[in-house]
C-alpha cells in the first residue's frame, strides 16, 4: 500500500493505492497524524485507488477521524470502490462515514 498526500487550499488530500489491510493500517494512521500535525485538520482520504479494505483498515480510519476531530477539523472519505463499500455496509460503518464522490466534493459545503 502506497500513501501520498497533498495540501490543498482548505483541506489536505491523502491518497492510498493498493490494499488497506491490517499491515497497511498503522501506516495510514501515521500519515494522517503527520498531516494533522503539520496544520491541516481537514483531511480527505481519497480511496479511488484502494481496491481492498479490511476491518483493520476501517479501524484506522476511525482512529484518523478521532485525530482530525481533536485537532478541530474533520476526516472524510471519497471515491469508494465496490469492495470497500461492501465492507462499510457490513460493519454499519456507512452509518458513521459519508462517502463523497470526489475529494473536491468532500468539503465543498463546509
Amino acid at each position, binding site marked *: 500500500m502506497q500513501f501520498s498526500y497533498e495540501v490543498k487550499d482548505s483541506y489536505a488530500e491523502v491518497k492510498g493505492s493498493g490494499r488497506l489491510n*491490517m*499491515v497497511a*493500517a*498503522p501506516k495510514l494512521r501515521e500519515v494522517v497524524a503527520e498531516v494533522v500535525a503539520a496544520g491541516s485538520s481537514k483531511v480527505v482520504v481519497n480511496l479511488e485507488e484502494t481496491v481492498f479494505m*479490511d*476491518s*483493520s483498515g*476501517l*479501524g484506522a480510519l*476511525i*482512529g484518523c*477521524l*478521532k485525530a482530525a*476531530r*481533536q485537532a478541530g477539523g*474533520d*476526516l*472524510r472519505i471519497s471515491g469508494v470502490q465496490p469492495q470497500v463499500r461492501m465492507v462499510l455496509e*457490513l*460493519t*454499519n*460503518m*456507512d*452509518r*458513521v*462515514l*459519508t462517502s463523497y464522490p470526489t475529494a473536491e466534493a468532500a468539503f465543498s459545503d463546509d
Partner: protein
Amino acid sequence: MTVVLGVNYVAWRWLGSLNWDAWWIAVPLVAAETYSLIDVLLFGMTVWRLKSRGAPPAAPDDATVDVFITTYNEPLDLVMTTALAAKDIHRPHSTWILDDGDREELRRLAEEHGIGYVTRSADWADMPRHAKAGNLNNALMVTHGEFLLILDADQIPEPDILDKTLGYFNNPRVALVQTPQYFINVPKDDPLGSQAPLFYGPIQQGKDGWNAAFFCGSNALLRREALMQLGLVGYVRETERNIRQALAASRSAIRKARRSADADNPLVEHMLNEVEAVTNEAQEQLETGASLSEITYRVRRKVEQAVQTLVQADFSALQSDLEEIAALELAHVGESGLPVVAGDAVEVMSGREWSPLGALESVQAILDAISVERINEAQPVMPLATISVTEDMATAMRLHALGWQSVYHHEVLANGLAPEDLKTMLTQRLRWAQGTVQVMLRENPLVQRGLSWGQRLMYFATMWTYLGGFTAVVYFAAPIVYLAFGVLPVSSLSTDFFIRFIPFMLANQLLFWVAGRGIKTWRGQQYSLALFPTWIKACTTAARNVWFGRPLGFAVTPKARQSGGPGWSLIRPQIVVSALLVVALIVGVARLAAGLLEPVGTLVNVVWVAFDLVVMSVLFRAVRYKGFIPEERNADAV
C-alpha cells in the same frame, strides 16, 4: 430418557405432591427441583451434539500470527518461561508480552530475548482500563498478525500448538479455535477441583456441535478480522446511542436556559432558538439516516459559532459560570472499571440554575463529551467486549451473533498453573461467576439477534448453572427441616414418590456417566453444590453492579500461592451448614426413637444429609491442602 423421566417427576411434584401446609419449604424445594431439571435438560441438549473433530486440517503456510502473553502482576520468571516457550513455537510468528503492570524489568528481559513488549499507550491515561480486555485491545492496535494466539502468563504452550490449530482457519468463517486449559500442578485427587474435565470435554465438545464453543480467555486462537469487525460494529452502535442521548440532553439544557432570567435578552433568545433549531435538525437527520460524522460535525460547528457570538457580546459576567463548567468532569470511570457515560453529568447540568450562556456551554460540553470520537474510552474501536469482567464469554457470544464460527480442539496444547490454595481458588471462581452473570444481565443470550436457538441455549446453559447457589441452600435446608421439626415438603413419601424419583435419578446419573465416558466429574459436582455462598455472592454483586452501578470488588487471580495458615474463615457458611446437618441428623434419630418421625421419611432424609455432608467434605480437605508437591519428590520422601 432422562428428559422424559425428569419431566414426569417434576410435573408430578408440582401438581400432585406439594404439601401446602408447609408451603414455605415445599415451594422452594419444588422450585429448586425444577431448576435442576432445566439444568439437566440443558446439559442433555449440550452433549446431544457432542462433536469429536479428530485430526485438525493442515495449517496454511502463509498465515501471520501474533502470540500474546497477558500479564499483570505475575512473577517475572513465570512470565518469561511462558514467553520463551511461546518464542519456540513452530511456524513463523511474533511473540509479545502484554504487560499491564508496566514493569521496566520485564521490558528489559523481553528485549534481551528478542520478544515484543507492549504496555498501554498514552491514550489510556485516565480512561477505563477494562482489565484484560483493555490490555488485548491496546495490543491489537500496535500489532498486525492475521491470527492471535492468546496465552495467560502461566500457560506454557507446546511447540506444535499452531500446527494443530491454524488449519481450522482455512474455513474463512471460523473466528475462534479454543483448546483446553489443563493444569500441571494439580495432584491426582484434585482437592480444589481445578481441572474441569467435564467442561473441557463433553460440554465444550457439545457446544462445538451447536457452533457455540466458548472462548475461555487463554489457549485460544482468534482471527483478527473477526475481532476488528466486532469492534467496528460495537463502535457504530455505541456512537449512535451516545448521540441520541446527547441530543436529548441538549434539548433539556435549552429548556432550562429559557426559564432563566436572561432569556428575555434578545441576543440570548436568538442564540437559544438557533441552537434549538440545530438540535432538532440533527434529530431529523438522524432519523432519515444521515451519517453520524456529518451530523455531529454540523451541530458542533453551529453550536460553537453561537457560543462564540454570545461570548463576544457578554463575556465578563459569565466568567464564573464557565469556570464551574470547566471544573465539571464529563465522563468518569466507575469503580467497576466501566465508564459511567455522561448521563450523570447531564443530570447535574439540568439540575442547576445556570444562565443561558452556561446552558449553551453545557450543550456544547455534552456534544463534546459524546461524539464520534468516543472520548470516554481510550480508543474508539474496542474489539474485545468490555461489558463484563470475563471478556471472553461476551466476545465469543458477539462473534457468534455476527455469524462467525468457532471450533473446540480437544487436545491439551498448553500447560498451566492452577491456584494452590482455597482463597485464590475462591477468588477465581467468584470472578468467573460474576462475569458470567454480568453478561447474562447485560446481554441476555436468549434475546440476542443473530444467534441460533441452539447457540442461545448453549450460552444460557452456562449462565443457568451459576444460579445454582440458591437451590443448594434449599437442598441443604429441606432435610434439616424434616429431621429437626418433622415438616415434610412432600405430601407423602409413598410409592408414588419413589417410582417417579428413583428412575429419574438413575437416568440422570447414567447421562453424566455416559457423557463423561469415565472422566472424573464427581469433584466438579461436589464443588457446584459446596461453593453455594460464592455463587450467591456472584449473583448479588453482579446484579448490583449491572443495575445500580456498584463496584464488583474485582480481583486478579494471583498465580502464586497465598501465604498464611488454613483459611477456615473462608468457608464459614459451609461450616455452619455442615454443623446444622450433623445436629439435624442427631435430632432426627432421637425423634425417630421417640416415635415422632416415620421410618421411611427419616431414612430418606438421613441418606440425603449424608450425601450433603459428603459433598461438603471436599472443602475440609481443600482448606487443609498445602499446595502441590510433584510426584517424584513425594516418592523420594517415602
